[in-house]
C-alpha cells in the first residue's frame, strides 16, 4: 500500500478569464496532517469543492486511494471514503444533535433504506454515536436541536458528522471559521482526537490553528500552489508575510509538493 490516500494532479479550473485553480498538484499520505493556507480569494474553497465533487475541474484529476474519482459525484466520493466539513455550518438544524450524528452513522452502516428497523434499537450504532458525541464534547447537548446549540458546538458537530462516516481522507474547510478566540481551543481539542490514520487536509486562515495542527503546510495564491514545507518554513517565509500583509508578490518561488 504505497499509493497516496489522496493525490491531486494538475488540477485547473477557470471562472471565465480568471484561473481560480491553476495547475495544482499535491499528495496526501495516509495519516497526513496537511494545511492549505492562503489569503481571501486565493481559491481555497474552490479547490475543496473540486476535491469533494461539488465542482467539476476543467482539467487534471483527483485520485482517492488509487481510484480516479474526477468524474464521480460527491455522494460516490463519500462512499469511497472522502469526508468533508463546511466553512459555513451545513447541518440539519431542526433535528437534534444526536439525530445528526446517527443519520450519518446509519448511512455509513447501510441501514438508512430499511423502514422496518427501529432506530432506537440499533444498539451498536447508538453506542458509537454516543462515543463520537462524547469525543467532541457534545454529550451534554445531544437532545437539543442544532439550532439551539452554540455556534462552537455546531462547528464541532460538523467534524463529528464527518467522523461518523469514517473517512480515509478528511477535508476540513475552516473548521473554526467565525469562532471567538475563546472557543477555538475546543475545536483544536476535537481535531487532536481525529484518528491518526486519517489523512487530513485543513483549509485555514488562522495561523495559530495551522501551527498547532499541521505537520506540513502549503500556500495557495491566485489559484497556484506557491510554497510548501513545514509550518515553520512556510509561515515564516517572506512570501507568506507579503501575501498576508497585502503586499503583492511579484515573483514566486514555486514549489509543488
Amino acid at each position, binding site marked *: 500500500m504505497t499509493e497516496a490516500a489522496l493525490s491531486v494532479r494538475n488540477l485547473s479550473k477557470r471562472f471565465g478569464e480568471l484561473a481560480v485553480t491553476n495547475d495544482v498538484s499535491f499528495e496526501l499520505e495516509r495519516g497526513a496532517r496537511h494545511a492549505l493556507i492562503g489569503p481571501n480569494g486565493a481559491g481555497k474553497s474552490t479547490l475543496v469543492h473540486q476535491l469533494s465533487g461539488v465542482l467539476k475541474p476543467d482539467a487534471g484529476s483527483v485520485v482517492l486511494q488509487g481510484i480516479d474519482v474526477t468524474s464521480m459525484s460527491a455522494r460516490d466520493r463519500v462512499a469511497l471514503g472522502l469526508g468533508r466539513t463546511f466553512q459555513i455550518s451545513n*447541518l*440539519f438544524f431542526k433535528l437534534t444533535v*444526536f439525530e445528526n450524528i446517527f443519520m450519518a452513522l446509519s448511512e455509513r452502516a447501510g441501514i438508512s433504506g430499511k423502514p422496518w428497523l427501529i432506530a432506537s434499537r440499533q444498539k451498536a450504532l447508538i453506542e458509537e454515536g*454516543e462515543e463520537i*458525541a462524547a469525543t467532541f464534547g457534545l454529550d451534554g447537548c445531544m*437532545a437539543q436541536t442544532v439550532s439551539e446549540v452554540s455556534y462552537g458546538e455546531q462547528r464541532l458537530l460538523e467534524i463529528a458528522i464527518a467522523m461518523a462516516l469514517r473517512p480515509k481522507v478528511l477535508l476540513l474547510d475552516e473548521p473554526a471559521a467565525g469562532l471567538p478566540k475563546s472557543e477555538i481551543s475546543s475545536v483544536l481539542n476535537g481535531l487532536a482526537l481525529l484518528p491518526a490514520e486519517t489523512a487530513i487536509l485543513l483549509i485555514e486562515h488562522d495561523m495559530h490553528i495551522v501551527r498547532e495542527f499541521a505537520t506540513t503546510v502549503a500556500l495557495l495564491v491566485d489559484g497556484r500552489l506557491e510554497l510548501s514545507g513545514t509550518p515553520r518554513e512556510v509561515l515564516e517565509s517572506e512570501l507568506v508575510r507579503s501575501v498576508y500583509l497585502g503586499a503583492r508578490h511579484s515573483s514566486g518561488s514555486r514549489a509543488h509538493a
Partner: protein
Amino acid sequence: MPRDATAPGASIGARILAQPFSPVEVIPWLAALAVFFLASDYLALGTSMIVMILFALSLDLLTGYAGIVTLGHALYFGTGAYAAGLLAKHGWSEPLTGLVMATVFTAIVGTLLGIVLAELRGMASIMTSMALGLIAYEGAKNASWLTGGDDGLQGFSMAPVFGVFRWSVYGHTAFLYALAWLLVFFVAIRILVASPFGLALKGLRENYGRMQLIGAPVRRHVIELYAISSGLAGAAGALSAQTTSFVDVNVFSIDVSAGVLVMLVVGGLGRLYGAFAGVIVYMLIHNVASEFAPFYWMFIIGAMLLAVVLFTRGGVMGLIDAMRRTFMRKQSA
C-alpha cells in the same frame, strides 16, 4: 414498539431516537369504536373519513416528512380504486387479497413514476406530479370501455370478509373493515417513522444537499418513498372502492389531490396525527357547512385554511400542543 428504549437504563441516544407509543394514542381508535356502537347513522361518513385518513397519511410521509410537495397524489388513490374495482368487477371479489393486489399494483406504478419524479425538485416536481395526475384523469374519462368513463365504475360487489361478514347497507362491515386496515397500515407507518429510513426522510426535508454529502443515496431514498407512499394511497383508494362498490372518475381529479393536501395542512404536517385531525375537522365542516350553505362550503373551508396558516403553527395538532403547553405551565405555576 420501541418500549425497551424508554425504559430506565436505556442510553440517552436510544431515548432521543425512540418514538414510544403513548396511551393518548388510543383515543382515535376508541372514538371510532364509540361511533360504531353509538352513532351508527354516521358509519358511512366515518368510513369515508377512515379512507381519507389513510390517504392523508400516505401524503404525510411524502410532504410532511420528506418535504416533497405534490399536487398529483390523487393519481395513486385513483389507481388503487380502479384496480380494486376492476378486480371485483372481473370476478376477484375477495376483498382482502383484492386490496393487497391493488396496493402492490399502485406501488409498482408509484415506483415507476418515482424514478422520473426523483430527478425533479421543487416547482418542477409539483408541476410534473400535477400533469401526471391530469393525464390519468383524462385517460380514465376517455377509456370508458375500461373505467366506465363519466358514469364511473359500478356494477360490482365484494364477497363477504373472511367469507362470513356480509356488506350490509348499514355499513357496519365496511366501517370495521376499513378501520382494521387503517390500524394495520398505521402500525406499519409508525414503525417506518421510527426507523433510520424515517430519519433519512426528515434529513431530505431539512437539507437535501447535505444528505448527499453524508453519502446518502438520495435518489434511492426518494424512489423507495414514492413506492411506499403511492402504495398506501392506492390502499386508501382500494378501500374507498370496496366499501362503496363504486369508483367515481373524479378520484383522479386535481380537487382530490389539493383537498387531501389542505386536510393535511389543516391538521398539521409531518406528525401522522395531523392526518387524523385534519381529515376529521375538514370533513365535519364540509358535512355541516354543505347542509346549511351548500354553495358556500368551499368558502368556509378556505377561510379555515387561511386561519390555520395565519394563526397557528402546525395546524390543529400544533394548536393542541400549544394549548397543552399553556395548561402545563398553569399547572406548574
